[in-house]
């Protein structure tokens, strides 16, 4: 166990705070017996995985942050049932390097491999396959938790339904997850068969996604927010399925000789202290390039890492936004609310803040997590430089549109919302709070986000 007093921020690099940060394994924590000794300041404790959430859920100013480290022997694969039991501090990167060569893939992957399993459960993360497979929580069978009173408890959706659904998506505020068992999916190759298409505008995009997504396990659209007018919402739609060995043989016979070799390259980090290079001109040029580089229609194979984790090619790319950092604004609105979506996209386009990454996806069924984000509808994700002028009024207008349409915002990305916005988007918040206080009556688990959004 190593303790230091340092400043922490989320991936967006905004609103940092200083806390006692303890590097600790689950074993070391559970052998402590009581957690109170770790909270000398009375500001509570929070778990931190790899800090890939964008805002402040894994920081706890003035209190203690438990930065979890995987223990020895963190992976137990059971090929007979297709499940794996892992140390919750394990990164998806490490896990994939172990299981992919054995023919298994994780049921849901975010846009980066550098998140922990604990973080994946606590945010009930979604991937490009949400419309087909749901969120991460839907694939979890069992969790072992360390609760506020220092006790350990192993739970399943049937043994403790309340605590279970308060923990899936519960942002670490119901207790610390030490171990998780979840189902994997079998794969024959490390490739996906991908269709990429250039789409000229929003209406065509919506239409294509509605009519064609069911043919693909994975689907996502990248929207060029620099385009306006008749081209508003022009996009690159990228959809695919895992390639079977036979398919790979016919597309890339050479790769089919070693179909399960998984060794994504690790590139050097962007140095710290960069100025914001993702300014308007650079983003405009990039968007134009990205759109043009995609052929009108392209059908082919892509490696798992290129298809799912292209951003992992550049370590610490968040530093490209400079010292002001950036925020990610992710919303979901019901399927009917296409006009709301259009208004938001055009507002952001007109404001000219030059979003680097605007992603549109369709969500399928809810997992059941009381604070889980995904709910059937369109989810739009925007990256915005935090220093941009006029962001406050723009986001406030978007908030009204989202909530007016019956939508909500994603806590794992949020660094900006107010308590009222979250309350309006999450009608089961009070139910969640009641469960939380039954397992943590003294309020041991606390984070900057929890205080900011009045979650505790």
């Amino acid at each position, binding site marked *: 166990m190593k303790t230091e007093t340092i400043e922490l921020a989320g991936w967006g690099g905004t609103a940092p705070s200083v806390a006692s940060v303890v590097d600790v394994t689950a074993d070391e924590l559970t052998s402590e017996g009581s957690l109170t000794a770790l909270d000398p300041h009375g*500001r509570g404790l929070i778990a931190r995985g790899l800090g890939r959430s964008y805002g402040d859920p894994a920081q706890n100013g*003035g209190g203690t942050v438990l930065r979890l480290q995987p223990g020895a022997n963190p992976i137990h694969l059971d090929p007979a049932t297709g499940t794996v039991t892992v140390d919750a501090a394990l990164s998806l990167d490490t896990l994939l390097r172990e299981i992919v060569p054995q023919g298994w893939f994780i049921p849901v992957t975010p846009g980066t491999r550098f998140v922990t399993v604990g973080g994946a459960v606590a945010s009930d993360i979604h991937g490009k396959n949400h419309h087909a497979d749901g969120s991460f929580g839907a694939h979890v069978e069992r969790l072992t938790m360390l609760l506020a009173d220092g006790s350990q408890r192993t739970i399943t959706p049937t043994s403790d339904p309340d605590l279970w659904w308060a923990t899936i998506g519960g942002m670490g505020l119901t207790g610390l997850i030490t171990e998780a068992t979840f189902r994997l999916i079998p794969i024959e190759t490390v490739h996906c068969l991908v269709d990429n298409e250039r789409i000229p505008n929003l209406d065509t995009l919506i239409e294509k996604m509605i009519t064609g997504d069911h043919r693909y396990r994975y689907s996502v659209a990248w929207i060029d927010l620099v385009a306006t007018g008749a081209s508003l919402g022009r996009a690159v739609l990228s959809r695919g399925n895992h390639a079977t060995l036979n398919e790979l043989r016919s597309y890339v016979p050479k790769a089919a000789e070693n179909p399960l070799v998984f060794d994504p390259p690790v590139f050097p980090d962007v140095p710290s202290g960069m100025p914001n290079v993702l300014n308007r001109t650079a983003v405009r040029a990039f968007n134009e390039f990205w759109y043009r580089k995609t052929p009108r229609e392209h059908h082919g194979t892509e490696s798992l890492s290129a298809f799912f984790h292209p951003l992992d090619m550049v370590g610490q790319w968040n530093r490209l936004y400079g010292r002001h950092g950036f*925020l990610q604004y992710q919303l979901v609105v019901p399927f009917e609310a296409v006009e709301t979506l259009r208004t938001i996209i055009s507002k952001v386009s007109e404001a000219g803040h030059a979003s680097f990454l605007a992603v549109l996806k369709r969500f399928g069924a809810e997992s059941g997590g009381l604070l889980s984000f995904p709910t059937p509808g369109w989810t739009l994700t925007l990256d915005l430089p935090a220093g941009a002028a006029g962001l406050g009024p723009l986001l406030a207008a978007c908030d009204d549109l989202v909530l007016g349409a019956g939508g909500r915002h994603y806590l794992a990305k949020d*660094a900006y919302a107010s308590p009222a916005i979250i309350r309006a988007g999450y009608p089961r918040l009070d139910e969640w709070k009641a469960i939380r206080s039954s397992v943590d009556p003294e309020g041991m688990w606390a984070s900057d986000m929890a205080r900011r959004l009045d979650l505790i």
Partner: protein
Amino acid sequence: MINAIHQPQTILVLGGTSDIARAIVRELESPALQQVILACRRPSEADLGGFGDHSSVVAVEFDATDFENHTQFIDGVASKYGDLDIVIQAFGQLGTEARDDPASAARLASVNYGGAVSSGLAVAECLKKQGHGTLIVLSSVAGIRTRPSNFIYGSSKAGQDAFATGLGHALHGTGVNVMTVRPGFVRSSMTTGLDEAPFSVDPEDVAVAVAKGLQRGSDVVWVPGLLRMVFGLLRYAPGFVWRKLDS
């Protein structure tokens, strides 16, 4: 907790009736703002209006010279209203007549400097415990080079300014920031009836500069910005020139 675009949730104003501070609060107003606490000598007379409709505004009793109670006062506010994102140190007296009366001059110094030190340290301790927060200190160019016509006030502001910048350095690494604001002549109730000096501004101008400073993470903010250069020179102007400028 302040959000990613520097919108605070909670603001405490020490000297809650100050025109400049109230303009700053209005400028920082957003849907994120939940609570404004105006700490002033006569809370029952404080105007709670004019701050938009998102937040709840309260006035509580506070005197800058009540040194013994500052720690208890600040901690009490934090425990009642939660983390303090922004604290504005805005009290101050100009005391034009203090020059002829040593006792009242010393009293002015104890408000402007003593009060700044005492409440500033209490705030610093409180913000350190939360691991984040910004103390905004309304200093003045009057303290950069003291003028013959108001050197008592000027010297007290010089002390406050040196305290604030020093405190900022001392707090490095704690998550707490100190922003020292150096306005020139501001048209506020403090200066009503006085002849305007060059580079005069309104409280709203100070507010805009402070909000920008928060965005940029500035330690020192001059208002208007040009005064930084002007005082860079005036600081070294020969004595006879300086005296002439003040007459």
